[in-house]
């Protein structure tokens, strides 16, 4: 809990610093924009958080969002129906998740290498599918999912709150959720105490895939344009949000609230760079440095905990 307080303090410090550095920060449009970007990043990283909590990893999440968004784009263009788009996105993302779950939980491949291989399969399929085309201009009703407002609040924020609430109930109040934590903390002990390890592993990868599909829909509705590279730069920020949020790479420790705060911190940093007119070319560098910093903190914390135990 104290760790979360530190991270919230981090958010506050960032906000104060940005408010002092740029007059544009404390404006309603910018704050709503930050909120919207935070919600998007949280959606992408939410399923990934469960996978990492269970001691696994999903490196295919960015490519999944990319492929899903491109499939949704053609579905919406072809049918003009919002619901067709949503259905295609959810189905595509979930299918990817099921494949990941099957090869990690069923065939026992190492998650890093398996989801890394899937990442490149998805990447290749996306570039092939799009044939270098850009699809843009979607109906207003579809774009509302990503760029609209309801009662003055960006629509993705409602999705974020819904996913967060469902995720918290799942993680804190259901047996399955507890089993996911147990699995990540100590797979051997979990197996011995009767946790259906394979089924829960399969579940978290499927959920991560499904969230990739949902994020694809929202992301596309926000950008209003789809091209093959749409998901290329999403993996690093997603991992950064999870790690900055305090979910341990070693499994069993962390929370979705942490990931929300992590997403907020990352979004504030990138937003700040925008406001200060720093070229977006620097973004991978900054995100990479944040990933390293968060991973170092995670490792040190665990070492200290180990030393105390």
């Amino acid at each position, binding site marked *: 809990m104290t760790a979360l307080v530190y991270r919230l303090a981090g958010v506050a410090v960032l906000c104060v610093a940005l408010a002092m550095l740029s007059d544009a920060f404390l404006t309603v449009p910018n704050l709503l924009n930050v909120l919207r970007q935070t919600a998007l990043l949280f959606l992408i990283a939410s399923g990934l958080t469960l996978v990492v909590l269970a001691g696994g990893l999903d490196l295919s999440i960015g490519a999944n969002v990319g492929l899903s968004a491109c499939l949704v784009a053609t579905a919406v263009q072809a049918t003009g129906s919002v619901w067709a788009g949503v259905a295609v996105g959810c189905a595509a993302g979930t299918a990817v998740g099921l494949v990941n779950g099957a090869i990690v939980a069923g065939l026992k491949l190492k998650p890093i290498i398996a989801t890394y291989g899937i990442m490149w399969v998805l990447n290749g399929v996306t570039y092939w599918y799009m044939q270098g085309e850009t699809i843009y201009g979607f109906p207003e009703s579809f774009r509302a999912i990503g760029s609209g407002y309801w009662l003055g609040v960006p629509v993705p924020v409602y999705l974020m709150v819904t996913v967060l609430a469902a995720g918290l109930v799942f993680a804190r109040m259901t047996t399955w959720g507890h089993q996911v934590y147990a699995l990540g903390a100590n797979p051997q002990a979990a197996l011995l105490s009767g946790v259906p390890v394979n089924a829960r592993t399969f579940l978290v990868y499927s959920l991560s895939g499904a969230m990739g599909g949902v994020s694809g829909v929202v992301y596309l509705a926000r950008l209003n344009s789809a091209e093959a590279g749409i998901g290329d730069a999403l993996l690093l920020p997603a991992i950064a949000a999870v790690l900055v949020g305090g979910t341990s790479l070693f499994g069993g420790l962390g929370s979705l609230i942490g990931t929300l705060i992590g997403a907020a911190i990352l979004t504030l940093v990138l937003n700040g760079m925008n406001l200060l007119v720093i070229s977006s070319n620097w973004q991978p*560098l900054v995100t*990479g440095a944040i990933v390293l910093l968060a991973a170092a903190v995670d490792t040190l914390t665990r070492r200290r905990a180990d030393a105390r135990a």
Partner: protein
Amino acid sequence: MMPRSWVQSAASVPGVAYVLPLLLIGFAAAVPGFASAPNVINIGIQSAILLLLALPMTFVIMSEGLDLSMGAVIGFASVVLALLLVDGHSLTWAFTAAVGGGLAFGLVNGLLVVYGGIPPFVVTLGTMGIAQGLALAITDGSSVVGIGSALPRLYAGTWAGLPFPILIGVVAYVVFHVLMYHTRYGAYVFAIGGNRESLMLAGVRVNAVHVSIYALAGAVVGAAGLLFTGRMSAGHPVAGIGLEFDAIAAVVLGGTERGNGWLPGTLLGVAAVGVLKNGLNLMAVPSSLQVAGVGILVIVVLVIDALRRRS
């Protein structure tokens, strides 16, 4: 005990040793022009850069590690090299700087993995972002052209009848082979993944050796930036992204796993990836599907290996 010899029994040979001949026969039968001498030389030239990445990647994976930063680092090395050439510096000096840049990233990777105790995939994912960001920032996101004629001429030239990239590939393989199988350092690399304890008890400075594996990888990737820049006659900040996947694919296909490596297998893996891409290319399969093809190849071979181990 792990095999310390480069000669393997038929039973322990990885699946790629059987897949590669199948690929060769299949493409030779189906694709006109595949089995011609110019095309075979072409495959060799195209595979040289991949080999330079896959050789040190073998060491990294043997040490229970992974290096996701290689593709970004070769891009960084390539723009450093190209920018220095554009500024009128000598090829020697530009090459040295590229190797130095690669070495710096390798050292950072190694230090964070070994002394930081941070999982290798996340360390190298972070440095991947940093290398990519640096390369984009110093070039403002565009290609570096106008590197003069010295490097393209070197790349296109032949030495003792061998095209320059193939010559470099052969030399690199021989050096890594000797290093792995005929030196004490090679024995340490074998032991570090599976037998770290006994290495420590034997008084070896295990941490230093472990860091050196990543540092060596960084330096070799930096050096490969020479071929990379020569091939494109330009420096490009992000053209290398994804090369790390081909390298990991080649190593994994070649039967190297944590704590146990096989360098001839890496050579076979590089050949398999090179042949697959070349054959698909001649069949006019778009490069995007070639990427997916390599991904599927890796998953399939891993699944076969997992099933073989289970039975």
